[in-house]
């Protein structure tokens, strides 16, 4: 009896509020919905939305952009975060202070990060532009130039989430066994050998966990893009969350938006399955 009583609150949230909306989207994807006088009228369209999805160039662009964004941003965050963690783990004083300082961006709302960098990257009065001018560089239209807009959004995301990778890596480094390093020093290993042959192999599990975790979060990116570029210029920074949002909410094409959401969820399933299969293979080898 207590078994069910203790589980029920979580079960209600997971199923009624977690599973039901997804099922709702699946059903909705086969319909066209019109809102009139606050009442919805549904008309069945079969798989027409899914057929349209296959030929939707915007959807294709947003999938490609999202993957580029996620891989680029996460790679940058992991490298910088690891370097920063190594740096921080080597100092003897003030480690707690630096850690507290570096966490700051992680705790900020994505929308605040977006607002901040919208100001900082503004070509007319932003601090970055002024900095460029100061050292004699040409001003750059970071968010308005279609060729570099996605790169700029990646940079902002790297600034936002590098501290998170740093935090996980620092915790990992601090939990490594000391005696291995002492033995290496006795054997005369230099700093690079130590990093390559001891630290990296020992840190591998933490690195993989951080990578997967960040990749999943990066795939959901919405807030920063919403404020910084609104998907533009053109489709340069169109990402899946933003495309779903536009179809579903701003254009009121709930059926098509739902089909898109279902396709994205399915894609995430595929990636999860691929990751699990890869892991099994590595473990078997």
């Amino acid at each position: 009896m207590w078994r069910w009583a203790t589980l029920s609150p979580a079960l209600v949230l997971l199923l009624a509020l977690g599973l039901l909306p997804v099922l709702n989207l699946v059903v909705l994807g086969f319909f066209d919905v019109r809102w009139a006088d606050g009442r919805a009228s549904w008309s069945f369209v079969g798989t027409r939305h899914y057929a349209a999805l296959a030929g939707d160039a915007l959807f294709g662009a947003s999938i490609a952009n999202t993957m580029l964004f996620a891989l680029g941003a996460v790679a940058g965050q992991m490298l910088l975060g690891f370097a920063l963690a190594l740096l921080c783990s080597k100092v003897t004083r003030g480690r707690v202070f630096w850690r507290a300082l570096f966490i700051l961006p992680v705790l900020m709302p994505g929308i605040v990060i977006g607002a901040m960098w919208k100001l900082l990257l503004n070509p007319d009065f932003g601090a970055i532009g002024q900095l460029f001018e100061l050292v004699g560089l040409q001003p750059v239209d970071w968010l308005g130039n279609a060729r570099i807009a996605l790169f700029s959004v990646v940079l902002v995301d790297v600034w936002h989430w590098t501290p998170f990778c740093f935090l996980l890596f620092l915790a990992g480094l601090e939990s490594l066994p000391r005696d291995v390093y002492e033995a290496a020093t006795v054997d005369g290993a230099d700093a690079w050998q130590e990093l390559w042959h001891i630290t990296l192999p020992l840190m591998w599990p933490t690195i993989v966990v951080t990578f997967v975790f960040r990749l999943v979060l990066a795939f959901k990116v919405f807030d920063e893009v919403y404020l910084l570029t609104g998907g533009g210029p053109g489709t340069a920074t169109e990402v899946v969350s933003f495309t779903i949002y536009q179809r579903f909410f701003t254009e009121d094409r709930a059926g098509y938006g739902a089909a898109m959401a279902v396709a994205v969820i399915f894609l995430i399933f595929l990636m999860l399955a691929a990751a699990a299969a890869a892991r099994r293979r590595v473990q078997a080898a």
Partner: protein
Amino acid sequence: MRALRREVVLQVLLLLCGLVVVLPFLWVVAAGFRTQISLLMGDFWFTPSLAAFQEVLFSKTSAFLHNARNSVIIGLASTAVSLVAATLGAWSLHRMRWPRWWVHLLLLWALVLQMIPPVALAGGWFVMARGVGLDNTLIGLILAHATLNLPMALWMMGVFVRDVPQDLVEAARLDGASTPVLLWRVVLPLVAPGFAAAGVLCFVFSWNEFAVALNLSMRDTATVPVAIAKFAQDFEIRYVQMAAAASLSAIPALLLLLVAQRWIVKGLTLGAVK
């Protein structure tokens, strides 16, 4: 001597990284103290003005205090719901007798739920909320945020619940403790650190959440991030007001970082190291 020189070099490098983190914040806070003209002119020196903060907080064109009230209510309530559901649920799943496939299935679903873009869920919730009349209510957003944060809380509480010693549980049972008494008197004090860590993070993530709040709220239920985005969307972007509002919205995270840094670090690193 060499050790000292190395320490100085490392500290200087860390200071440079620290500046990369802090300077953008300071510049934006400073922008909040400018006037729109001074900002657009791009002069380095300016006379500080409280006009933007005053406008954000007290003018008729802004409902920031009301938005902050909504955010606090939603944050506290959704955190409470997530924590209760996660603690009880974690105990049930990890320490009570369930078929293994059922436990695995639920935890796997929690993982998948965590991976689904919130915007996609917002679409489903939007239709559901309209159906039962919860659209444009704080309750709708509270439940949505509680659901979004539950997988993380469930995972964190699971780590702590599994560490509760079986001896203590059996001793309490022998003393005739019922399940609620056991949970309240024995388990809760032992998992208190996890409770604190999960609680702080649930609140911060709810306070920060934008994609769902944007689509499930209207004027009078809008949260702080929705209000900040609004400043960027008016016909003419209100830059200084946006900077002032962004600065104000950072206050809760700053306070929590000061008083609860331990729990934040513990919460964020949990699982990656274990």
